[in-house]
């Protein structure tokens, strides 16, 4: 169970997040929609532990993230909007960086993300869709129960979009929680809850 209470964040005098709160249960997909610059990415970064809120708490299955340092690492996987991969290295090395283990990744991960043919390929040689697939694989290393995704299918063709949406469905069916910032209507339709972010305030739409 994910509990978010009163998350607030400001850049100087500009308050970008004002008291964000919601709950998510296993199997939920929480979609956050809003204009560019509305604070969606900032909120997701806070949820992933990359940025700190000015106020508020985040709790993962009773574990307070502000009290225990390893909570974010244990409970979350994060897919940023930017490419989080090291282009000059191959897919296997990128996965090793996040798994903390060298050598070949788990067969489960390889199977799930169709990585077998591209493990030894440099990331710079991959297409946009393949890079995104690998980035999601890196986020899922360690089997986190909560996946935080910032526009996962932006700039991808319909085939890759479908592939990633299918994967997201399977993840939820495995009792995972997904929090996704999106502009994609199909992703919104797949979500169990939809929130809109406007002027730093999160409003439930569905």
């Amino acid at each position, binding site marked *: 169970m994910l509990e978010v209470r009163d998350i607030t964040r400001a850049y100087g005098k500009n308050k970008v997040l004002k008291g964000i709160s919601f709950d998510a249960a296993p199997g939920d997909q929480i979609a956050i929609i809003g204009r560019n610059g509305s604070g969606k990415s900032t909120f997701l970064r806070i949820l*992933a532990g*990359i940025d700190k809120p000015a106020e508020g708490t985040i709790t993962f299955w009773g574990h307070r993230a502000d009290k225990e340092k390893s909570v974010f690492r244990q409970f979350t996987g994060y897919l940023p909007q930017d490419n989080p991969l090291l*282009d000059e290295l191959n897919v296997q090395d990128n996965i090793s960086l996040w798994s903390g283990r060298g050598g070949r990744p788990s067969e489960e991960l390889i199977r799930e993300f169709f990585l077998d043919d591209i493990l030894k390929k440099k990331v710079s040689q991959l297409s946009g869709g393949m890079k995104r697939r690998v980035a999601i694989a890196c986020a899922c290393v360690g089997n986190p129960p909560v996946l935080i995704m910032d526009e996962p299918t932006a700039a991808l063709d319909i085939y890759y979009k479908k592939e990633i949406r299918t994967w997201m469905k399977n993840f939820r069916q495995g009792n995972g929680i997904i929090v996704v910032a999106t502009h994609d209507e199909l992703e919104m339709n797949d979500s169990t809850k939809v929130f809109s972010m406007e002027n730093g305030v999160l409003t439930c739409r569905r």
Partner: protein
Amino acid sequence: MKKGYLLQYIRIEYKRMLSSFGQMLISILLMSVIIGIGTAGIGFVMTHLADYEKVTVAMVLPEGEEGSTLKSLSSLIQMQESVSDIANFTYLSEEDARKGIKDGSIQAAIILGDTFINDIMTGINTPAIVLLPAKTELNTDVFHEEVRNGISLIRTGEAGIYAVTDTWINGYSMVISRSDMENLLTDLFTINALDRNSVINDTSVSAFGESSIMQYYIASGFALILLFFGLIFGNMYAGNDITVRKKLRVNGIGPVTAGIVRLLVMTTFIFGISIIAISILMIYTNAAGISAGIYFETQVILGLLLLSFSLSGFFHFIYSLSDIEAQNAMILILVAILMAFSSGCIFPMAFLPDVFQKIGMFMPLRIWRVGISQILFSYLESGNWMLLLAIGIIFGTGGIICQIRKMHS
């Protein structure tokens, strides 16, 4: 933070650096060759600036016993350092000497007559004939001036002796013959004249310090090559690095840990390159029969390790200034060029204008150059140990602070 993450991060950073090195290998090697040739060339010019092209002087001597005596005397004169530094004597006939001056193979000729010695002994001043080309070079003029000074000295001494003997003959009674008197005075004059040389005590002060010119420019070239090797490390700080690092921080690898890992990676790499470079230098100097005085000892290994750490700290700082790889590379190149000129790597600092000398005193490159020189050719002084360590720590810490600020921006 899991130990596994840290080990994988270290492995990944080494791999990134090696990947960058592989891509830039040709450029780096070319740059090293150019710097090596450049510093060798400057060293060669500096060495030969001190060279003075000697003149070839033809001695035209009479035949017979007098000629043999004169040849012995001129050989003795040529052995004097003040003469051998500027001239080589050769013995020719007058015809060959004149021909040599006309065709330029001889720069001057001194013709001594048949009765030259006898004339001197009997007080007849038969002049020696000095032949010079119509158009003389500087070195010929110098030789001519030295000859005139030498003759002036002899004439002055001769005049003094004659003055004393004439005074005694005219004013006092002689208990020894005039010639014995002149010989005695000549001996006394010679003893006293030679003694005068101890008035001036020559001490050499070199712009190159205690190193030879060759050692100075080996150290300079080495320092410059290592400095420009820093361009390899730009890739470790480039591209989407900040996104990855923010994610890594969640896994316990924050800017401090990442900074220390990068310092480790760069230090070991620079150390490895230094060892290879010195090995190549040792092989080359041995093969070429050049005595460079380079040996592998414990203090050399430790000194190179410290030097590598010092350079790493500097690179970490430079590359932490901006997230744009091209900008950081440009900063490094500009700083390197400024340091190269002001730190004495190209021209010794003593030759530079005051402003550059003052700037150069604080340049890390000067400290690295001096450090390398001491590490390779003598011993690293404790003051320089501290300076090298301080550069590594201060710049390394500065780089980490820049990274922390970027994380929070």
